[in-house]
């Protein structure tokens, strides 16, 4: 049995929608099979009004044990740090977030908005938004550098735009089944079990990456999306090609370049003209190389790949 409270700040509800796609366990299974007591959720909650405010206050005071506080969306600070542009239950949402985070055993930030600020924090960041413990790559965020929940863990960041339902449910189940101690976090406080590997890990286009065969345009039946179409799969930490989306596919499998949405910089280059779906190059080389590869290594890899490329690599492979 674990009490869970889920609130939304500067959010689109995409993480909630993603969460509701879950199976094994489904959202209902979490409640009926895993003893997750959903104290309240914007889409699923049953206690509302005065009852909701009482729950919030009881969580803050400790009258209700708040085991897991899930936050989706940015912390909105505008205008002038007051947070009045996002009011909730009669006061700026940021005030609730502060008090509930201090009361919770575990604080989980779901999605890019809650982790790093995401799309709303894109320049010029009109709503003065930030994540719970980061603003983009900068450590601190709304709760501050030293923040630790009562369990001793900092905010558990489950990024992605949106986060995959399994990333969410597995972390909740881990906490609910007493395995929180096994959750190892990386430097951005992401669970390593999901975010150590790359988006490219398991991509169906890996052979084309290896032989440097490019998908030069959309709608092609072959080729790697990294060389021309701006794919960030080799530099992005996510299990998108290990744990498939909607049980079926992934963006790179379907032909869409990875946007790097589990990384703090998303959306990259602040969407400046010329940067969307186009690989950025410097002197003919990709500006962002696969993680850990330097220019010399890249040149060597390219030469070897071109020499080794078999004829089939240039032909359609994902055929009808």
């Amino acid at each position, binding site marked *: 049995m674990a009490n869970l409270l889920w609130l939304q700040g500067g959010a689109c509800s*995409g993480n909630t929608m993603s969460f509701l796609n879950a199976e094994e366990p489904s959202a209902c299974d979490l409640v009926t099979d895993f003893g997750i007591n959903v104290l309240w959720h914007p889409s699923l*909650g049953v206690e509302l009004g005065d009852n909701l405010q009482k729950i919030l206050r009881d969580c803050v005071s400790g009258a209700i044990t708040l085991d897991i506080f899930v936050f989706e969306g940015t912390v909105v600070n505008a205008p002038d740090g007051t947070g009045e542009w996002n009011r909730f239950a009669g006061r700026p949402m940021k005030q609730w977030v502060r008090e509930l985070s201090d009361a919770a055993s575990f604080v989980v930030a779901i999605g890019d908005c809650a982790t790093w600020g995401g*799309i709303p924090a894109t320049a010029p960041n009109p709503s003065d938004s930030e994540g719970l413990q980061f603003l983009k790559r900068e450590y601190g965020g709304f709760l501050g550098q030293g923040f630790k929940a009562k369990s001793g863990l900092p905010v558990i960041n489950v990024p992605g735009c949106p986060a995959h339902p399994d990333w969410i449910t597995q972390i909740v189940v881990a906490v609910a089944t007493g395995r929180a101690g096994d959750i190892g976090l990386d430097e951005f406080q992401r669970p390593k079990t999901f975010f150590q590997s790359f988006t490219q890990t398991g991509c169906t286009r890996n052979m084309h990456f290896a032989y440097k065969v490019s998908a030069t345009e959309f709608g092609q039946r072959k080729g790697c999306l990294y060389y021309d179409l701006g794919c960030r799969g080799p530099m992005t930490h996510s299990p998108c090609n290990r744990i498939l989306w909607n049980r079926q596919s992934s963006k790179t499998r379907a032909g869409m370049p990875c946007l790097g949405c589990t990384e703090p910089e998303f959306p990259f280059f602040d969407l400046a003209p010329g940067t969307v779906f186009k690989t950025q190059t410097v002197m003919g080389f990709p500006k962002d190389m696969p993680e850990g590869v330097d220019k010399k290594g890249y040149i060597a890899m390219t030469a070897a790949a071109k020499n080794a490329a078999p004829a089939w690599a240039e032909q359609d492979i994902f055929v009808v």
Partner: protein
Amino acid sequence: MAVQTLDISPVGRVEGDLDVRVDIEDGVVTNAWTQAELFRGFEIILRDKDPQAGLVVTPRACGICGASHLTCAAWALDTAWSAEVPRNAILARNLGQITESLQSQPRYFYGLYAIDLTNKKYRGSSFYEEACKRFAPFTGTSYEKGVTISGKPVEIYAMLGGQWPHSSYMVPGGVMCAPTLTDVTRAWGILEYFKSEWLESMWLGCTLERYEQIKSYNDFMAWLDESPAHANSDLGFYWRMGLDVGIDKYGGGVGRYVSWGYLPHEDKYQKPTIDNRNASLIMKSGIYDGATDTHLTMSQERARENVTHAWYDEAVTDQHPFDRTTKAVHNNKTSFDEKYSWATAVKDIDYGRLEAGPFARQMVAGGHQGEEWQHYDPLILDMYKSMGGPSLHLRQIARMHETIKLYRQAEHCLREFKLNDSWYVKPTEKDGRGWGATEAIRGALCHWIEVEGGKIKNYQIVAPTTWNVGPRDADGNLGPIESALVGSPIADPTDPVEVGHVARSFDSCLVCTVHAHDAKTGKELSRFRIG
């Protein structure tokens, strides 16, 4: 979790916060104000960005209608860049849009709407016990099935776009994907599963073919009486309980309706322009004016926004979205005589405030405007006339009625793909103005874009919730939800579930906080979130 007794009906609705204030006099709502309480400034973020930034940013305006935003963003750029869009790509976009909408049907109906029928207010109804059994959150038989199966249709979306929500697979000139035979066959399998496990077995209690024979109110009543399987299906049960508890008696609204139309025909919109869109749509656009029983075709130049009562520091005269500048006021103090919402008041140049949504689409579908070949469906308009006008109950019936049509359109897409033909024609980027529109499940959505100097000069979005939840306009005319709330009976002012019914029947994309006020004393009776 045990089912909890609800003093206040549940289900917030996502997408920021909406406050509703209602005045109640002698048990009836006499005045209402709707307030959108979250501002993120997507139009401001998009300024000076890459022309294609809208493909990444706007699906993230709404995690529920992301495919619909993406559809608008892509068609807007197509028209601005004079792109050619191959037949397959039109079908692949339509299929994405449709699967998102199919997803929303059981998720919305059970997850957000039908829970209200388990409110203690209805304890006296002979349907109450059965309603709790079916619709109680998490544990209700229909709730659990419906919410879980809602994830299935968007598995098809993931085959096209890699994931739902938040893909950007629709791009000017077509789509990023090139589906293969196995994608198509798996998609058929998923559709069949959705149909056999829920749509026919649980929702209709009959085959799609039998349901499709219903063309009028009388046909529907005959269908209901035809078999216990019909009467006891979730549709039959909801219909009967709705009438029993009287939700067919209020929540009507402004009585004028809008749809941009949607699903461009794969053979008719390969060279898209703003002007040739209307004649290219399978589901036609239109306005329906209930008072004069008039249908006409809708077009983007008829739309206006007014910020007299919205927190924007712009001209208070009606503006076309191309002329908006999106300047937020700094101090968003609530003043019901002045400004009280982040939503603007959207209107038509002649017909003023219009209701958007699935109900509006069906009212529009019942007219003979547009092209001879376009979709025509008289059922909901006939129900509206037979039942004496609009109600929140009929709004639900209209919404769920569309499910069957969406299902058929999904089949059409799968049947029409020509797998060896092209999916993308690379367009030439250029400056210009574009407009893209569709119908998100909850209503009329469109994007205006102006590209200048290779970057976005102006990007404007008018969402269905903007139409429905907007505040008063310059002349003091109430918005559609404000209008629908007026006249609602309130049995228990400390638990005005009726207000929840009305607001939720629009599937507004916001979380509402209701402040119920006694009109005579001004005393605040209760506050709670609805959606």
